């Protein structure tokens, strides 16, 4: 049982009874869920007692949840928000980005196993905004070799908006937004601790997370630490990719307090990553043998990235009669150092970010709700002494205001949103200053039937050029490119049409989601036929009439004759074009098949809970841009099982194998593709989770 606004999670006893001694703000959504049952949500008014009955559920293709983005039920959303618990995503992959890439329409762009970026419907980097508990993460995401910068430590849920999302999140959310929410607090009683330890064989990766949760009256706290280390990963040929090693440390703590009309959360998070950059060579065309090693090491060598992130966030929610006021203040710093030498950095940049946002939600009538808000942001980019300075010292100032009107009656919901943003980019030495402003809009319609649900939406967004696109002039060592910016670039503008149709029966559920995205003034980094400093030149250029279209489908089948068997299929088909040419770095078509079998509960000491078999087929990508090479098709088998031990009620074990057939494959979005370096070979994994 989750009290959504206070993020307090509790559970019933074996008889299904529960009690909670917290001040619950009026109109708070209380969410009830149980595995294999349809979840239910009620709106708390002032009752002392509530009685809830959950109905048996066979198919949960799109489970109803409360969105952390706007505190609305997913069944009432007009925009397409995909919500997943982290525990569902990292069942067979202990890497945040790899887990997210299991969602339809989501891919990963990787540099080995340590540096990974999210790609949403073909767009990534600055075009996908990442938020953690409502705070926008600014962590040098402009670089092709700059990873997501944090792990799944303490994250309970992720929500994904595919396509333009500027109306809620402001500038840059052209490709989509990832909204991560921390795990919930406990409702009271004794402190609870959790230990999660994982191991993967291909890179001998170990990762340990330890968390403690404690609640006393209106005070709640969660504190977690993490340490992980991975050696060079093993290729299917048995060799190891030299310098694909990495390590990470993290610490996060949150402190919450609430009364019946005020909720406050103070959160701090620290992440530190040491990330080897593989495939480093001074040869023009190094061979796989030159770039790999017969032995496996984990100590840091060169070239290496050091990435340090601190984030501090204060969230306030006030309940004033039937209205809700949110005020968030956050401060973060991100330092990125790239070393090729041992003692002198090639690049040493610190990005400081301060953000203030406020929103006010009020019902106008029983059917009409109005939300309006504003966001202010300031980013400061500062270089420290290093061999190169790819982007200059400067600042970005943001100011945005939006208004959302929502009409809801019976099974019909519509939403209209408008937003205005202003952004100023200025260099510290006053040699460059540019202002951008833009309007964004969204219109969404949603209609629910007995077994059906259809959403139709239009949304627009814009993205201003980043410092790197405007002012780069130097070697970017992480990508081995000499990058040249263009001061005359203007903002990209995106318009997306999205239709999602969902049908759910007793044993079968399906979602069909076609979309069309038009982007004007798209900024592309194009390779040029010239060399500077022994490095190929790439130039940022603006192209018009970029279109990305596709269809995403999900099917969940649960046969009546085999109640323990579940079959899930997801399919992603997409194509990106620039005029009559294909757009570079577009993900290939992909299908994922998951078959899961749940075992009956027995009296045995070791209880096999479920076993799963997964097949991921990625089609060949031959719709490529000029100077881009095609990629071959490949299929991967993964296997696993979840085990619990009856004598230790709070202990779970997951074991399995990824890439069972030791298939040698190269993703179209791998940055190591040009060196013909394959991904990991067969890898055994184990995950232990214990709660005290």
């Amino acid at each position, binding site marked *: 049982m989750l009290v959504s606004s206070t993020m307090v999670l509790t559970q019933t006893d074996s008889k299904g009874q529960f009690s909670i001694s917290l001040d619950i703000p009026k109109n708070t959504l209380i969410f009830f869920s149980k595995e294999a049952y349809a979840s239910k949500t009620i709106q708390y008014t002032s009752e002392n007692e509530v009685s809830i009955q959950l109905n048996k559920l066979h198919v949960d293709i799109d489970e109803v949840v409360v969105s952390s983005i706007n505190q609305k039920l997913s069944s009432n959303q007009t925009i397409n928000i995909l919500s997943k618990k982290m525990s569902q995503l990292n069942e067979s992959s202990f890497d945040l980005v790899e887990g997210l890439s299991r969602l339809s329409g989501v891919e990963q762009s990787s540099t080995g196993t340590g540096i990974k970026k999210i790609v949403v419907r073909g767009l990534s980097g600055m075009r996908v905004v990442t938020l953690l508990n409502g705070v926008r993460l600014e962590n040098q995401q402009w670089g092709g070799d700059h990873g997501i910068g944090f792990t799944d430590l303490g994250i309970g849920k992720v929500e994904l908006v595919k396509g333009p999302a500027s109306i809620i999140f402001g500038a840059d959310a052209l490709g989509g937004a990832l909204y991560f929410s921390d795990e919930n607090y406990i409702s009271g009683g004794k402190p609870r601790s959790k*230990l999660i330890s994982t191991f993967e064989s291909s890179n001998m990766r170990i990762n340990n997370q330890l968390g403690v949760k404690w609640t006393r009256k209106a005070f709640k706290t969660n504190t977690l630490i993490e340490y992980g*280390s991975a050696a060079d990963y093993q290729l299917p040929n048995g060799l190891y990719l*030299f310098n694909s090693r990495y*390590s990470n440390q993290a610490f996060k703590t949150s402190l919450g307090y609430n009364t019946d009309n005020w909720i406050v959360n103070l959160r701090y998070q620290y992440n530190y990553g040491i990330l080897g950059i593989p495939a480093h060579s001074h040869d023009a065309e190094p061979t796989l043998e030159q770039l790999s090693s017969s032995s496996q090491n*984990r100590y*840091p060598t060169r070239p290496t990235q050091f990435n340090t992130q601190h984030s501090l966030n204060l969230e306030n929610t006030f309940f004033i009669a039937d209205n809700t006021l949110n005020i968030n203040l956050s401060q973060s710093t991100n330092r990125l150092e790239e070393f090729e030498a041992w003692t002198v950095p090639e690049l040493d940049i610190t990005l400081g970010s301060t953000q203030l946002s406020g929103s006010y939600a009020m019902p106008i009538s029983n059917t009409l709700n109005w939300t309006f808000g504003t966001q202010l942001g300031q980013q400061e980019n500062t270089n420290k002494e290093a061999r190169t300075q790819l982007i200059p010292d400067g600042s970005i100032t943001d100011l945005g205001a939006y208004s959302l009107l929502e009409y809801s009656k019976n099974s019909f919901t519509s939403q209209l949103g408008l937003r205005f943003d202003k952004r100023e980019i200025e260099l510290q030495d006053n040699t460059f200053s540019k202002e951008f402003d833009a309007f964004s809009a969204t219109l969404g319609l949603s209609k629910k039937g007995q077994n059906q649900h259809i959403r139709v939406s239009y949304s627009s967004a814009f993205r201003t050029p980043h410092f790197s696109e405007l002012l780069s002039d130097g070697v970017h060592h992480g990508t081995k490119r000499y990058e040249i910016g263009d001061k005359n670039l203007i903002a990209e503008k995106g318009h997306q049409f999205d239709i999602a149709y969902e049908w759910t029966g007793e044993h079968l559920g399906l979602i069909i989601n076609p979309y069309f995205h038009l982007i004007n003034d798209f900024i592309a980094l194009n390779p040029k036929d010239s060399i500077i400093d022994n490095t190929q030149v790439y130039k940022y250029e603006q192209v018009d009439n970029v279109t990305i279209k596709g269809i995403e489908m999900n099917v969940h089948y649960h046969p009546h004759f085999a109640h323990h068997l579940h079959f899930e299929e997801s399919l992603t088909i997409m194509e990106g074009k620039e005029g009559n040419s294909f757009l570079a770095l577009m993900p290939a078509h992909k299908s994922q098949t998951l078959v899961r079998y749940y075992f009956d509960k027995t009296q045995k000491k070791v209880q096999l809970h479920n076993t799963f078999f997964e097949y991921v087929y990625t089609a060949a990508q031959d719709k490529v841009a000029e100077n881009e090479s095609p990629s071959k098709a490949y299929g991967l088998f993964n296997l696993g099982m979840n085990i619990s031990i009856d004598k230790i009620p709070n202990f779970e074990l997951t074991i399995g194998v990824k890439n069972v057939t030791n298939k040698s494959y190269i993703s179209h979005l791998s940055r190591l593709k040009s060196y013909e370096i394959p991904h990991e070979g067969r890898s055994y994994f184990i995950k232990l989770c214990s709660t005290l």
Partner: protein
Amino acid sequence: MFNTLKITKMKKVSIIMALGFFFACTDHDECHECHIAWENAQGQEVEVEIGEFCEEDLADVESNGYTLDESVVVGNDTVPAGSYPGSDIHCEEHDH
């Protein structure tokens, strides 16, 4: 009985986990073999080994460069004597 068993097993698990936190901590030396990376007329890199450098000497050669007193013949190329800046000095591992 049940609680004792549970606590004992959990303790074992906790100890294994705690050890895991330190599993990956390995030391690395502070000395590295360095070379001058010189580009010949064909644009190919030619390496001239200049020996092992440690700690402050390593920082000095990477920051301030290295002076090659005499020309060095490497295969068909002759790397000229002279001062090479820190950016031409490479001490990272390439061959494995």
